[in-house]
């Protein structure tokens, strides 16, 4: 007995959590237990007869009704409320032949006394360190219809209504997403091949029961995970114990594509992807990404994977909260791009957001991420054993990959599961978060059980993302809802993605047509000639018809799109699916010219088409200008400020010769890198003579600094020379020289005050020449050219005139 109590003690101590019960007796309710199952009527009869015989009849009592699904059926107990019961009356109750016993009702309070397990406490900075693994930009750094269920667009997430535990107990993500419901049905991911592209996994890790294969694609001769990231990601997907993953029985294929120094090369990925295709992988998790969507071999290979029925899941990026920070390949139409939320359903601060920027300057970007899920403080497998907590979209990505693997295993007819159908199921079932726009949350947060329901009743079809256009819906349809449309304005473009679950390749049949509804608007459509792989674009361009030039109100209509794919079971035949895209817009009368501002997007260039250095030289972490330079991406604050002052801002995605300047009060040129055609210069001069104003934010241009920001890129193994400075000041000088104005190549920085506003001037030039009869407002700032420290990459440098002296820290 002493030994037994010792074991018991040890067992309790080994459990990290001690559960404590506090049981209160709730007077005066009693549970009356019967000897068998009786109907409600019979039960009340027995109780009333028993209590009648109890004596004087002054006993006040009534049966407490229990309204639940079991109330229609016979039960073996009844809950009775007896006022001032005496022990004798209870005894007489028990005397009844059919009554077994009477016990007082109890109320149970449980509280978890949590003892944290003895793992090293990871300070906040440590987890942020793991998500900010950024080697040089162009390598692949870490960080990384009828389908709707018929309910309204806004779903309750319980965030504002229900009481929720505010203590920061680390959550078990698979259970929060109710994966146990699917486990109990017998679905655990078996028969699904999932590939983890990461830092590898150690041999015989206790958490994994079905590691089919580990392969190494790096130049380090090891298959093990020296960092812990790959183990964590694999654990979130398929761990079978402790911090359990979604699909413990899935067939894991571990691809080690990163070295222990978090270095990887496109060429390694190409070979590893080829192997994944050969092995007929079903789901592939890629918790990495970068801004280079023009890495054609890589992008082509991801398309090839999708075309070979591999469901790609990738992290949208950790460069938030700035807009215009989406990473590739998560920004692709055929890939499921995943953003991060915390356990309070707030978008994680680091989660990348904003529209895609492939389509600039002439078009408009697509909505990404596709869905969001938990990526903050998620628990997963530790490197050797045990569990640890990590944050980042590279954590949210395997949550979705694990969910996808589990979902794939629930479908009887595996032929129905393909990259499009899975994506359609996830986005149709996602629960929208209130107060967040679509370029932050996509379609909302992952709902595993609803996705299961949709996937298991799926029939091959096409769908649209977003599935409707409502330019009045705020804040979800920001930025569209932030400015109504009017006659004469630049067309509003919505870049809709077509998802085609019927086949790898598809096409739009005939031209989509717009029925004669909402004739106040003109809708123009363009679309991909071929929908491959599994997806394509549908660009909807909305402008106000001339007849509504002075009209105000809401216009509605819809577009019908029919998609066709070759049918596999019918030679020469096609499967078709027709989708409806509702459109709703708010129209206002055309504002006066003085209230209309035109943003020049055409001359804003950014990486990856070329190497454009960052605008603020003091910023250490991001050497490239890659955020799109659009008013709805990194210049969002400027846009919102202008809107709040009552201005209407439109975007010019074409050369200056392509707009009617009499419609606009001001042309806004911010951070222009592109050169100007002679025709543009002539036309602009005429426009300004006719009343157009021009505002230029000139940035910096200094040849010694540009020479210094050239660097040797490890990934491409080449020297990168910047294509221009922060802005193309020589080109701007060509533009403004006709008025006798010019910018200098000086470099200045400092604080200043204009009226009541305190401002910071970061790495800009000065005005070298201006007409004498003009007005110049000047301020003395720190001349970085006269000798000042600032950072070029990681090195602190001293700029004096034409010389730039930098201190290099040599790594030994």
């Amino acid at each position: 007995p002493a030994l037994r109590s010792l074991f018991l003690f040890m067992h309790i101590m080994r459990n990290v959590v001690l559960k404590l019960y506090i049981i209160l007796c709730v007077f005066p309710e009693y549970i009356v237990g019967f000897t068998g199952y009786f109907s409600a009527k019979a039960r009340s009869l027995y109780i009333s007869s028993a209590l009648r015989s109890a004596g004087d009849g002054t006993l006040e009592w009534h049966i407490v009704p229990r309204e639940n699904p079991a109330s229609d059926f016979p039960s073996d107990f009844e809950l009775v409320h007896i006022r001032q019961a005496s022990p004798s009356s209870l005894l007489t109750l028990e005397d009844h032949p059919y009554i077994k016993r009477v016990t007082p009702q109890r109320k149970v309070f449980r509280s978890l006394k949590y003892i944290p397990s003895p793992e090293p406490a990871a300070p906040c900075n440590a987890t942020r360190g793991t998500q900010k693994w950024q080697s040089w930009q162009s390598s692949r750094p870490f960080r990384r219809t009828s389908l709707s269920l018929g309910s309204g667009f806004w779903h309750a997430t319980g965030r504002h209504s229900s009481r929720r535990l505010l203590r920061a107990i680390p959550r078990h993500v698979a259970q929060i997403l109710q994966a146990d419901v699917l486990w109990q049905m017998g679905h655990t991911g078996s028969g699904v091949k999932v590939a983890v592209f990461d830092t590898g996994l150690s041999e015989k890790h206790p958490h994994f029961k079905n590691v089919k294969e580990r392969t190494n694609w790096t130049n380090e001769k090891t298959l093990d995970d020296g960092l812990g990231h790959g183990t964590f990601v694999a654990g979130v997907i398929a761990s079978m114990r402790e911090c359990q993953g979604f699909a413990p029985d899935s067939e894991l294929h571990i691809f080690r594509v990163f070295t222990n120094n978090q270095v990887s090369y496109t060429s390694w990925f190409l070979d590893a992807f080829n192997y994944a295709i050969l092995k007929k992988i079903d789901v592939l998790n890629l918790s990495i990404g970068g801004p280079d969507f023009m890495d054609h071999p890589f992008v082509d290979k991801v398309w090839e994977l999708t075309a070979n029925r591999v469901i790609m899941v990738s992290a949208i990026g950790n460069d938030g909260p700035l807009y215009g920070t989406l990473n590739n390949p998560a920004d692709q139409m055929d890939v499921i791009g995943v953003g991060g939320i915390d356990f309070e359903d707030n978008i994680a601060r680091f989660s990348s957001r904003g529209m895609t920027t492939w389509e600039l300057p002439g078009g408009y970007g697509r909505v990404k991420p596709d869905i969001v899920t938990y990526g903050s403080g998620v628990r997963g497998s530790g490197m050797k054993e045990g569990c640890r907590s990590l944050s980042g979209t590279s954590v949210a990505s395997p949550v979705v990959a694990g969910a996808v693997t589990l979902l794939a295993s629930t479908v009887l007819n595996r032929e129905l599961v393909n990259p499009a159908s899975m994506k359609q199921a996830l986005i149709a079932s996602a629960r929208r978060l209130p107060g967040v726009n679509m370029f932050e949350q996509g379609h909302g947060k992952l709902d595993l059980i609803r996705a299961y329901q949709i996937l298991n009743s799926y029939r091959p079809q096409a769908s649209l993302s977003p599935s409707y256009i409502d330019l009045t819906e705020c804040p979800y349809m920001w930025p569209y809802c932030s400015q109504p449309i009017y006659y004469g304005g630049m067309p509003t473009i919505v870049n809709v993605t077509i998802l085609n679950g019927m086949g790898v390749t598809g096409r739009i049949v005939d031209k989509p047509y717009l029925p004669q509804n909402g004739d106040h608007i003109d809708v123009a459509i363009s679309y991909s000639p071929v929908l491959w792989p599994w997806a394509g674009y549908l660009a909807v361009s909305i402008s106000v018809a001339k007849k509504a030039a002075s009209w105000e109100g809401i216009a509605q209509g819809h577009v019908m799109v029919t998609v066709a794919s070759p049918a596999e079971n019918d030679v020469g035949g096609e499967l078709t699916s027709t989708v409806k895209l509702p459109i709703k817009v708010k129209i206002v009368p055309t504002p006066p010219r003085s209230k209309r501002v035109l943003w020049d997007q055409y001359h804003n260039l950014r990486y990856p088409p070329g190497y454009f250095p960052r605008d603020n030289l003091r910023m250490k972490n991001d050497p490239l200008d890659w955020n799109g330079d659009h008013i709805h991406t990194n210049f969002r604050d400027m846009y919102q400020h202008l809107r709040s002052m009552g201005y209407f801002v439109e975007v010019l995605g074409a050369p200056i010769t392509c707009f009617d300047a009499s419609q606009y009060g001001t042309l806004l040129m911010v951070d222009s890198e592109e050169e100007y055609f002679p025709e543009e210069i002539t036309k602009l001069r005429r426009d300004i003579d006719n009343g157009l104003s021009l505002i230029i934010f000139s940035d910096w241009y200094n040849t010694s600094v540009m020479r210094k920001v050239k660097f040797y890129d490890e990934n491409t193994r080449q020297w990168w020379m910047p294509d221009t400075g922060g802005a193309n000041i020589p080109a701007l000088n060509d533009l403004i020289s006709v008025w006798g104005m010019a910018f200098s190549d000086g470099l200045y920085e400092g604080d200043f005050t204009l009226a009541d506003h305190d401002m910071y001037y970061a790495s800009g030039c000065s005005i070298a020449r201006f007409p004498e009869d003009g007005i110049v407002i000047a301020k003395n700032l720190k001349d970085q050219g006269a000798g000042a420290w600032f950072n070029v990459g990681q090195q602190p440098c001293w700029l004096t005139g034409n010389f730039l002296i930098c201190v290099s820290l040599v790594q030994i």
Partner: protein
Amino acid sequence: MMVLRRLLRKRWVLGVVFGLSLIYFLTSTLKQEERTIRDRTLLEVRDSDHRIPWKVRFNLGNSSRQITQCRNSIQGKTLLTDELGYVCERKDLLINGCCNVNAPSTRQYICKSCLANGCCSIYEYCVSCCLQPDKQPLLERFLNRAAEGFQNLFTAVEDHFELCLAKCRTSSQSVQHENTYRNPQAKYCYGESPPELLPV
């Protein structure tokens, strides 16, 4: 303490310290460069004395195997190649996965868009050309000399069809400077040599 300080102030002591640090710095930097150079070439070099243990089954000539069902290349926008070497349009694909040989546009062992160096512009034609029986010696030579970096892929390939599907895909051999194609046009190669660099 004072003695030590005085010693450290002596010029020759400082000179020795400086000299040793300089030697250490030089040796470690050079060593690091050497290591990275060696690692980088690992994937590019063709190792003639290290054979990968490939096990591809080639079906030569008269195959007694009855073809009731075909595997095919599944991925194409408009074209597909089946395991018998026929290229057809998607609409001419039979229910069993084989190409309809009677359709007017179906061709077998077609090397359209393929150059003399064995690199083609269209993936499906590369696979079809590769499946031609007379390509077998070429493929065997490639396998015998394939670099260790391709070990994973080409040891897992089981037959002629899988070999051609895998061989024709773009790979680390197809790129220069990691993110650019050596030849953006003819980038699918069944032959031994990587795509020729396009002149800039």
